[in-house]
């Protein structure tokens, strides 16, 4: 198998793990989640919407024809998460690990999008 494909799959699985492990907290209204999202002015609707989108991203990024779409969605979600850390919740205490995870997932999403750029013309055309 192609080396790029292997790298891409490792990144995809890592993204799915990073996104997936927070879903349990979001869908069970865990106090940490409620506390975190309250700082963003978001209630249960907000974090469940984001949790739902993260779940969709996990499924898409692990299913063959839609991997690049999953990577774009997770890129968007992680962009939002990083903005939240930068502008509202910061990186101190418990939030440091979460913030770093978001940055890692964001970088991995960029990598998957780049490796699979040929699968979607919008992205393919970005690189000529």
């Amino acid at each position, binding site marked *: 198998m192609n080396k790029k494909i292997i790298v891409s799959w490792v990144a995809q699985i890592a993204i799915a793990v990073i996104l997936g492990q927070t879903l349990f907290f979001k869908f069970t209204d865990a106090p940490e989640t409620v506390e975190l999202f309250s700082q*963003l*002015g*978001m209630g249960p609707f*907000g974090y469940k919407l984001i949790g739902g989108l993260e779940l969709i991203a996990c499924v898409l990024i692990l299913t063959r024809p839609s991997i690049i779409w999953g990577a*774009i969605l997770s*890129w*968007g*979600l992680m*962009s*939002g998460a990083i*903005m*939240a850390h930068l*502008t*509202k919740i910061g990186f101190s205490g418990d939030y440091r690990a979460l913030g770093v995870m978001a940055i890692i997932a964001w970088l991995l999403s960029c990598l998957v999008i780049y490796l699979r750029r040929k699968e979607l*013309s*919008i*992205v393919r*055309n*970005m*690189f*000529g």
Partner: protein
Amino acid sequence: MSTTFVINLHKISRFVNVAIPVLLALSFAGGMFISFYFHFLTVLLLFLTIANLFYLNVQKGHAILRNFGLLGQGRYLLESIGPELRQYLFASDQEERPFNREERSEVYRKAKNIDSASSFGSRQNFDASEIKIRHSMFPTPRESLKPFSLTYGEERGLKTAYSIAHPIMISAMSYGSLGAHAVRSLARGAKLAGIPMNTGEGGYPKYHLMEGCDLIFQIGTAKFGVRHKDGRLDEAKLAAIAAKPEVKMIEIKFSQGAKPGKGGLLPKEKITDEIAKFRGVSKDRNLISPPFHHECDTVENTIKFVGRIQEISSLPTGFKLCLGNIVEFEALVEEMKRQSLYPDFITVDGAEGGTGAAPKSFLDGVGIPLAASLFSINDCLKRHGIRDRMKLNASGKLVSPGRQLMAFALGADAIYTARGFMLSLGCIQALQCGNNTCPAGITTHDPKLQKGLVIESRMLRIANYVRNIEHDLEELLRATGRTSFSELTEENLYIPSNVTLSDHSLRSLNGQMAS
């Protein structure tokens, strides 16, 4: 006259290129100061901004995107759905090629058993130089028509001589070019209609054999199914295939109308494990057959090769060609007489023939169209006094009874059509035959796309098409005042003065046939 309101795409695209980052900044501010929900929009705009920066500054492959950015992408989007839009919305009923909507719908109606009468006159352009059929003031009464019957191989007194009772046959389409469902639907329909089917040059005809219809086995230039590893003829394999009770005739393919002068072509997208096995080839590159049979390097050897196949198979054996040069053909005829060895039939394929993937320059620009080549070959055989030694099959866009009758008048004994049967199967002319993505499930091996093609319902369409074509052909024949197709000659046609069929003036030829 000055225009006060115009849509200036240049300005709009420049405006969009500025507007996206501005909106991004506004949305970001909204997310900061109003509600975090604004950041859903921020993220989307961020993606568009980055993509746009790449389009404008990074990539170097697309001039439109480099000049106009994101809106330029709309061009590629619209271009990609253009064929569908044109076919469904904008193309007129007589505009499309190879078959316009009127021609396709005639076949669909025949296949679905719907009356194809229409009113208020022909929609063909009568100013055009098209061949028409001359009708007689004294049409033939129905009961005087002679029933159609044609026996291949009778000239050589073969025990295996093969008779057909219907004037049309399914032309060569291999398993490989067609998917298994399409092959089986055609084969079962052929069995139901009582007509033979040509296997195409696809090697061992497993799916063709499955339904028990009569088969004409085709030997292509790569000899799939009957070849040694080095490409020479494997006589034992040929004898084994010829011994099968379903196989009634052998057709040696010299050239085909879609790509005369070039061998068969199967794109690698369409080569499955099974196809690679049947053809004895590897599956990771395009499969390109040689342009000619290695045994047939001279006129003499070509005729010898035909004789050799006749001997091995002991079946009626003929060859198929698309005419390139009547002088060459005449040499072939002289050689037949010298060796006194004649094919049992010749299939004349017009350059308009179309099934099969082919380089566009060959599809469009090589070979003689059917009207002229059929007339020339028939005339050549008659001049040499050997027309009665063989049968002539005609093929090349012969999907409608009008064109088919003209082919009879120009010398054909029987009609081959491939695309007529593909349209009957439900082909929508999506022109994706070479990509393995046929939306109608005909020329694809993708099981998800083949699911749409249900053999039980499609075989009826094949049989309907044959029956309705035959009915229309008989009506046309009666109108000419003749009692059988073999009585028709070019005198039954009105040939406008600018259309020349003469074999010696091929250079000034402008052969066209009306639909």
